[in-house]
Structure formats: C-alpha cells, structure tokens
C-alpha cells in the first residue's frame, strides 16, 4: 500500500478536470453546482494532503474554512435554483437568455 503525496495530487487533478468538464458541458443548474463543488473538493484534498506532508498544519485548518464556506455558497445557489424553478418550472441554464446583447 503506497502512501505517497503524488497519489493524492493525481486524484485532486482528476477531480479538477471532472469539475471543469462538468461546468463546460452540462446545462442543468444542479449538475453545474455539483461541478463547482467537485473543484472545491479537489482543492480541499490538495490542502489536506499537502498539510500531511509539510511541517505546517495550516492546510487542514484552511480546508475546514473552505468546507464551511462552500456550504454557505451551496445554500445560496440552491435558493436561487428554487426561485428560478418557481418562475420557469425548469432549471436548464440554456433557457435563461433574456439578457443578451
């Protein structure tokens, strides 16, 4: 069983790629919200892994902060989705295009 830093970083980069892919391709608001969360969690994994291998534990503290902040952000995002759903009966962002020019 290997326990190297590089393993964690590879997983984190894979998560980052999945998140960016999801944001670029998906058009459902909840899926896009998930994609953003995956990117944030990729960063959290990075922080915790680095904190484990560095003589400095600040990364773990930062990961806690970031988890709390991400939760607040998701709460706002879900509230916006609910308001949008009441108006449009739909949460496809491709349909939100009354603003353009």
């Amino acid at each position: 069983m290997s326990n190297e830093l590089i393993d964690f970083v590879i997983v984190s980069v894979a998560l980052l790629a999945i998140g960016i892919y999801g944001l670029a391709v998906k058009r459902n608001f909840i899926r896009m919200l998930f994609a953003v969360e995956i990117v944030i969690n990729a960063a959290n994994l990075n922080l915790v892994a680095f904190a484990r291998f560095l003589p400095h534990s600040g990364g773990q503290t930062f990961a806690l902060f970031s988890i709390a902040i991400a939760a607040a952000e998701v709460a706002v995002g879900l509230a916006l989705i609910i308001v949008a759903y009441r108006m449009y009966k739909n949460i496809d962002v491709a349909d939100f295009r009354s603003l353009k020019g």
Partner: protein
Amino acid sequence: MIELTSTPIIILAILGGVGVALPVINIALKERGSMISYGIATLIALFAAIGYVLYQLALDHVAPAAIFSQDVLVDDAFGSLFAIAMLIVAIFTTVGSFNYMKNKANPSIYFSLILLSAIGMVLVAYATDLVMLFVAWELMSIPTYVLVGFLKKDPISNEAAIKYFLFGALASAIIIYGISLAYGITGSTNIGEVIQGFMVLDANMIPIGLLAVGMFIAGFGFKMGLVPFHMWLPDTYEGAPPTIATLLAAGTKKAGFAAALRVVVMGSVALSLDWTLALGIIAVMTMTVGNIAAVMQKNLARMLAYSSIGHAGYILIGLSIAPFSGIGLQGSLFHILNHAVMKGAAFIAVAGLVTALAVTHVEKLKGLARRMPITSLGLVISLLALAGVPPLSGFWSKLMLFGAAIDAGTVVWWGPWLAIAGVLNSALSLAYYGWIIRKMYFEGEKEKRIKEPKSIIAIMIFSIIFMVTIGVYPEPIIQFTEFATPAINAGLMP
C-alpha cells in the same frame, strides 16, 4: 499580533455588529420596522467606519503601504485607500437604496447584506494571508449573489443572479485551487512567505508556481471583469437592481484589484517571469472589447457595464507596467479611487431614472435634462470624468496611467503601445458618452420637470463636488496615493 484598535478590526466590529443586528431587530419588531430606519442605521455604521479610517490616517497610526506582514491582516495605507473607496461605494448604494427600496420587501436583510459585503471588500484589501483573503473574498461575494437576485418575483433579476453565481462560484473554486498549489510548493499561506518561497523555488517546481499565479489571475479576473472572463458581467449589471450594480461595478471589482495587487503582481515579480506582457495584452484586449461593445448598446445600464470592463483595462495598464515605472501602480490606485466615485455616481443616476421614470433605454432619455436636471448633470459630469475630460478627476488618473506607460517605454518596447491603445479607447468612449449627453440635452421637446428623489440629489451633488474638486486640485489625493503605493522591489524583502 495585530492590535485590537487597528482599522480593519474596528471596521469589522462596527459593520459586522450592525449588519448582524439589523435582521435580529427586524424579527424582534415582528417585521414592522421601517425601511428608512434600517437604512439610517446602515448609513451611520458606514460613516463611522469611514470616519475611523480617516481618523487613523490623520493620526499617522497607519503604516505606509506595507504589503506583507506576519499577521493575517495589516493596517497599512494601501488597505486604507481601498477601504475609503469601497466604503464610499457602500454609502452610495445605501443612500441610493432609500429611494429604490421604497415599498419593497425585506429591507433589513437588504441593508444587512450590503454591510456584510462591505466588510468582505474592506478585509480583502487589508488581508495579508491567503486564508484571510479567501474568507474575505467569499464574505464579499456571497451576499452579492443574494442581492443581485433580491427581486425574487422578477425573472431578469433571478437570471442575472444565476449567471453571476455560477461564474462567481467557479472563480472562488479556481482561487482556492490556486491557493492550495501555492501552499503545497511553499509550505505557507502567508502571502509574504509564499512570495519569498516563489523566489527560491526549485527549478522543476516553477511550472506549478506559474499555474498557481495563472489560477489567481483567472479567479480574480472573473471579478475584475477582464476579457476573456467578462461574459457574465453585462448580463449581471443589467439584470441586477441598479443600486446593487453600483456595488458590483464600483466595489467588488475594486476588491478584485486589491487582491490581484497583493498576490499576482508580487507573485509575478517574484517568479521574475514575463507576466507583465501577458497582463499588458489582457489590458489592451479588455479595454478594446469593453469600449467597442459599449458603442453598440441601447440600454444605459448595459452600456455602463461594458464601459466598466473598459476601465478595468485602464487600471490593468498600471499593474502590468508596475515593475518598470514608479508611477504605474500609483496611477492604478488613483484611478481605482476615481472610478469608484465616477461609476458609482453614474449607476446611482441610473437607479434614479429607473425609480422615477422606469427607463433605461437610451432613446427614452430624450429631454431628460429638463425633466431631471440634477440627475442629468451628475450623470453628464460622471460620464465626462469617465472619458477623461479635463478638468475632471478621471483626467489626472488617466494621464498618470498613460504617462507611466510611455515612461516604461525606456525598459520595455510595448509600453508606449499601451498608452496609445488607452488614448484611442478613451476617444472611442467619448463617442458613446457624447451620444447619451446629446440625447439628454439637445433632443426632445419641452417637458415638465418632475420631482427628483432627495437621496439621489445628495449623491449627485457629492460626486460632482468630488470630481470637480479633484479635477481642479488633485495634489492631496496624488500625495495620498503615493503614500499608499507599495514599492515593488522593497516590498519583497522581509
């Protein structure tokens, strides 16, 4: 340890106390409190905060632009300059809202969110630790997502909020990924230590350092509205309540610059790589795209949004030539302060138009000068100042930025081209500002004067005085920006 009487802590206590108290009071009063009283409480808190910043500056308790410190916050003149700009914007937003929020639901939460967002903006400018920077960044962003979508029965407002939210959340995610990389290769989250770590980086770690700085540019660039990260900006500014568009255009955008100055500029100097040219190219792209798109707009709010993209480009000139010219950064800071007032006044004028006449279309502005003379005058002065017409405040900061760019020509060949692009863009911007002014003053029939809201008049008069005074006598502000400008190379020493 940072002292408990230092500026950021006191601002946090004042604004945070009132911001948290307002919704609680609202519940205690069973939601019967009047909008005006909440607004006045907010205003008192903001004035107390700005008063404390000025008091600390007057007593010389503030360090000259320190940029780095061992703590998470530093009480320096650089942060104070941004704090003044952002608190002015928050005051504009609050005063403008007196009129705009009349007969709208949940005023206490609205004002409370403005205060919380103002704390975030101020703390971003004072933060010297990446953890603090990120927390402050989110404290600034999350309330604005709610505020943009505050009119929950209005599909346009909701759509603007959703677009803003998606891009904003992605920007935060990218920033935190960049922070995690910077932490991983330098072993610290203190900005000063990270930059020093960058300077002694192992050769095969350099690409990761570059990736981290690139992610910072992208993440902060979303908020600053740099091309190619600007897609959300016109939609959001158009759809948001116009008072909140003020907060976004003049406030959160400046906070992005504060963060970028502390992290990106110093980071690129430390990595001693040619980021400057990349920033210069982004600056030219940003101002050109912003101004050309603005010419084609029919909606006043949208036109101002594109013009604010253009101004992000001007400010970026100063950042990109910072290592080569002493007055580059100073010009940027000066323009940031000016732009906060100019753009704030313009958007508040739009808010006045929306509430009094419910128009934002440029064609409908005909004869406005006779219907709302003071609002029109404020709008005209701020548009002329934005275009950089002497003797208004915008002229001096643009002169400084373009002068610095020409000055940098002795070191880098592309310096003068930035100045040329800037001057051409200013001329272009005068074209569409002139179009609005013509519609307001020289077209339309005799129309009756309508009653202008007092709060809007107050803001207009303040901003006219500010812009003209600084335009005629810029000396004190220039000295203050000099005091607030960090010395690039000296700043890198511990």
